[in-house]
């Protein structure tokens, strides 16, 4: 199994997190994303015509899109069936719903971070406003989960939905989005970093 990876990519970090949580042996192939733009090279476009990372190669097949890779890995390699809870359709529906939400976090919070950290030319005010709109929804949801005794996005266990939302929420400060506006999100971040086998990514400043 091979992950096309870039250390500072939050989307690649999602996959590294699950590989560690499930203790799956794998190989990492570093993509020179910045400044090399290797993900836009002819060679890489053969692997992913969208020119994006992460991509996972397993059993001779390529899978792209962080959320899709999380679903694939968890359904195939998680014997406890908790990260992608196939046996509980209503929980599974919630997980899928928040996976889609995670992708909108990428297009807002992550865009603001690309602007501030890598100097990307984009409308940062709009990206930040979009992120705040989503973070309010997530903060409301997590607060009400806590009040009902649930620590995680979809219920009592962490799932791929928590993994998919985690990186760009935790890194949002790099894009000028103030996390102290969202206390329930902050508590959830602390629970997440305390999961067994969790590893920190550069840029995430939370320690317990």
């Amino acid at each position, binding site marked *: 199994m091979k992950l096309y990876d870039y250390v500072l990519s939050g989307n690649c970090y999602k996959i590294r997190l699950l590989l560690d949580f499930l203790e799956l042996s794998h190989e990492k192939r570093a993509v020179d994303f910045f400044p090399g733009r290797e993900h836009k090279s002819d060679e890489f476009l053969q692997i992913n015509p969208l020119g994006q990372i992460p991509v996972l190669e397993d059993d001779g097949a390529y899978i792209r899109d962080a959320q899709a890779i999380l679903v694939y890995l968890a359904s195939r390699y998680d014997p406890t069936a908790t990260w992608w809870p196939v046996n509980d359709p209503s929980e599974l529906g919630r997980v899928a719903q928040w996976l889609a939400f995670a992708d909108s976090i990428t297009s807002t919070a992550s865009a603001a971070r690309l602007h501030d950290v890598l100097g990307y030319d984009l409308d940062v005010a709009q990206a930040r406003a979009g992120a705040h709109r989503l973070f309010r929804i997530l903060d409301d949801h997590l607060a009400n989960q806590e*009040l009902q005794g649930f620590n995680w996005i979809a219920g009592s266990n962490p799932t791929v939905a928590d993994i998919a939302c985690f990186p760009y929420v935790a890194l949002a400060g790099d894009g000028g989005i103030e996390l*102290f506006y969202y206390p329930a999100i902050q508590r959830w971040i602390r629970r997440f970093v305390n999961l067994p086998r969790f590893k920190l990514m550069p840029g995430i400043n939370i*320690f317990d």
Partner: protein
Amino acid sequence: MKPSELEAGWFPAGLQNYVLPKTAGRVVIADNDIALWRGEDGQIRAWENRCPHRGMRLSYGIVRGNTLTCLYHGWSYDGAGACAGIPAHPELTPPKTIRAKAYRAADAGGFIWVANPGETTAPPSIDGDWVPNRSVHIDATPVSLNELAEGMGAGLVSKITDHAGIVRVHGVEEEILLAFLDMKKHGAMIHTSVPASASEDVAIAVSKLTSRLRQVFKASSAA
């Protein structure tokens, strides 16, 4: 040295569970950036959010036992704010003059309260057993506790400070604690606590009413 001055009195800085034992967090009171933290002793502390070394935010710090260690170069500070160790000079006993600037801090009514170091009044004393309910960020600061209560459809039962009081909310059995924290350019935070005896339904209803305040106290530019 004194930290930058707050207005007189005690400010509701956050819910008690915003800062769990052995963690640190950031809060803004008016224009003042403040680090809140608890050691394993559970005691709440509020310091100016600037490391005396090079100004790193102490709210990013790591709590070990009852000391806070700055993330940047690892200077550590004891519970009273005195520098307790400098990793680059392990043999050195840090001079007594290196101190984090401390405010007063206390827990009451499910909230964390902060005041100037020289504040002469005692922290609010609030009767009964309260549990933290919800903290919500709003864009525009209410002009008064009355305006906030009105925005929530609540009636003020009794005032605790200019920014906090006990209110009765339409459709909710129990009286609740309601407070706001003016963060000036950052807008404001609304905090609520409910009686420890409140049911889960009451807790969720209050949380939802609190988050609805975002629609009431919108930035004037946002249509």
